[in-house]
């Protein structure tokens, strides 16, 4: 996708800029944006590393297991077809907890494991099962307790209140997740 968009952006901008006599502006703009990218990355190094470090501590405690127990009723509601498949349910809740804690690197391998377990029970091996669909939709909804990367970037950009977005993010995420789950449940019933 970006292999098409990126050159289009660059070529169109340069042609448009040259027609409107902005050769100097595009020349400066180009090199300014490069040094911006480098400067920002240096500040990102600090803030993003801090969050990954804190979350790694969290991963090593029993907090993960405790939260897994808390999720059980939700999992049973979302995945009625996995009633007897305890392994799949366990792996799904681990994946959800990793997502909630913002541990993207840990969430993906756990999720892949859950998909493999669900595939064993899948009658049509080349088609997504209902449970798999629900699982993927939940993963695209990005349910997160603290949006650490966004906060890190806001801090780097000298925000006066970098964490002011936490509450809005919670509300928006929940709305997105509910819409996704609702859609999936309806489509599972209506479309066979």
């Amino acid at each position: 996708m970006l292999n098409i968009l990126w050159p289009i952006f660059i070529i169109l901008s340069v042609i448009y800029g040259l027609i409107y006599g902005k050769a100097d502006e595009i020349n400066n703009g180009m090199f300014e944006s490069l040094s911006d990218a480098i400067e920002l990355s240096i500040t990102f190094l600090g803030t993003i590393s801090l969050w990954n470090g804190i979350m790694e501590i969290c991963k090593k405690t029993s907090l993960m297991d405790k939260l897994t127990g808390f999720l059980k009723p939700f999992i049973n509601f979302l995945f009625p077809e996995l009633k007897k498949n305890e392994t799949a349910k366990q792996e799904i809740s681990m994946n959800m907890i990793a997502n909630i804690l913002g541990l993207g690197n840990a969430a993906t391998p756990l999720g892949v494991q859950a998909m493999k377990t669900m595939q064993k029970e899948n009658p049509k091996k080349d088609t997504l099962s209902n449970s798999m669909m629900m699982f993927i939709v939940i993963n695209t909804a990005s349910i997160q307790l603290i949006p650490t990367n966004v906060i890190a970037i806001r801090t780097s950009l000298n925000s006066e209140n970098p964490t002011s977005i936490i509450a809005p993010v919670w509300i928006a995420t929940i709305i997105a997740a509910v819409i996704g789950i609702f859609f999936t449940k309806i489509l599972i019933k209506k479309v066979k």
Partner: protein
Amino acid sequence: MTNVINYISGAAIPVIIVLIIIYGLKERVKVFDAFLDGAKDGIEIVFKMLPTLIGIFLAVGLLRSSGIIDFIVNLITPLTNLLEIPSQIMPLAILRPISGSASMAVAVDIMQNYGVDTLTGLITSTIMGSTETTFYTIAIYTSCVGIKKTRWILLAALAADVAGMVASTVICRILA
């Protein structure tokens, strides 16, 4: 109401950091070693992001300095007015489901140019925090088990994305 939400938001981070460290100490986790492991991952994330950041900043810098972005924004303003989304956010809304690092780069660019704490900046942050790279997520989880027929998963996931983006806009407007 707004003050309470702001205060909770502000206290959340330090409180969570302290709680996690205390919890780690209680369970005799080597907290500093664990922190270092995680921080190392963080550095890797930034280095992996850097080439995309440079590439996208170059393209977005050109779009802006040539003036073409104002032209496009004027074109789509009627549509974005209808949805009450600031038109500066449209490039982010389009890129968000497609590429994680590219949309992050665009988000950084928007916040740098229109302000982190402005309404546009807040909506940008909220969208980044509440949505995922939908195409990538679907690709990873279907390819790992060799599934080709994805039924209507994309429809449901994109519906959730649009809902998240509209919700982000509405919530930030109410709170700001």
